[in-house]
């Protein structure tokens, strides 16, 4: 299991390193579309650039610095998902693709929460003018929960129904088969001794 996990981890890491820039562009595009649905007027623009998601708003003063959100923190858990899918033989590419698609949706949701959390809590008087106490707490908590629990647990929670639970059963089966084999061997030995005596 450790060897399979290590191979999956290495492959996942390679894919992650190679695909991060286009993945971040897709992520920024999808999150921007969702955020703009809830905006009147729709002003948010997200741009993936050098490992960051740059947040641009049409109503930001032209000279103001544009906040950048570290993208790797958001989607590094792709590597964990890849390693988990490699744990259980045989590798099922269809299920892995479904898992990756669900994780992409989780990343889009997390990026939306992160941008809203930024708007609600980090833009000083602008945040206070546009977000009430409840909204500020809600968006800040949503992203905090992603950071402390969801980003670590999401790969496991996605993988488990797509095949992870089978690995637990396979592991138990192997252990029981091994125990049966040992018991049979002991029985044969003791029978042999009885015949000899």
């Amino acid at each position: 299991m450790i060897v399979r996990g290590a191979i999956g981890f290495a492959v996942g890491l390679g894919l992650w390193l190679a695909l991060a820039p286009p993945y971040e562009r897709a992520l920024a595009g999808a999150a921007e579309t969702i955020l703009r649905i809830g905006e009147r007027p729709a002003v948010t623009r997200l741009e993936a650039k050098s490992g960051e998601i740059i947040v641009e708003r049409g109503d930001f003063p032209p000279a103001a610095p544009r906040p950048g959100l570290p993208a790797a923190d958001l989607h590094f858990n792709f590597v964990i998902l890849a390693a988990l899918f490699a744990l259980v033989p045989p590798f099922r590419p269809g299920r892995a693709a479904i898992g990756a698609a669900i994780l992409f949706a989780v990343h889009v949701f997390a990026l939306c929460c992160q941008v809203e959390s930024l708007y609600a809590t980090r833009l000083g008087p602008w945040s206070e003018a546009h977000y009430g106490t409840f909204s500020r707490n809600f968006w800040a908590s949503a992203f905090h929960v992603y950071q402390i629990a969801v980003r670590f647990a999401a790969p496991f929670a996605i993988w488990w129904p797509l095949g992870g639970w089978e690995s637990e059963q396979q592991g138990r089966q192997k252990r029981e088969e091994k125990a049966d084999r040992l018991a049979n061997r002991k029985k044969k030995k003791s029978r042999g001794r009885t015949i000899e005596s």
Partner: protein
Amino acid sequence: MRASSREETPDRTAGRRRSILFLVRFVVLLGLFALLVAWKPVNDAVIVPFTGGVAHASAAVLNLFSEGVTVQGTELRAQGFGVDVENGCNGIETALLFGAAVLAFPASWRARLIGLVAGFAAIQALNLVRVVTLFWIGRHRPALFSTAHTVLWQSVVVLAGVMLFLLWASRQKAPPQAAA
């Protein structure tokens, strides 16, 4: 006629149902644990002192290699380099994930307790190696720090937590079919 491996046998259906119940329990427990550790009184009284303990233990190990590390709160400092051990670097998140999975899995309370204690110790031991190596990388190979911190070690610790859970779960007896 041989049964196809894809065919839904009663065993497989029961296993799938058990797995979905496990997942629901796991998500609920993890949500509760995450809210608990995010709650300021718990964070201040438990998590921050625990993280300080992780920082002190890491400094003790680093000083065995003559790194000359001092600790202030949760910060590790040596000449020309310093890191703050924050939430996410103290092994608590992986321990919560492992704990939620162990408690959600159908097993005896004795087995769960043994799993929780042994798993927590193993995760913290691995996390200690992580903090020590990350400090060393940050000080001596700073160009590698970001990748090692964000991707490599975070993933390795979470994967170790999942594999520990699978190892523990595979040692539990299968529930009787009627109960499944």
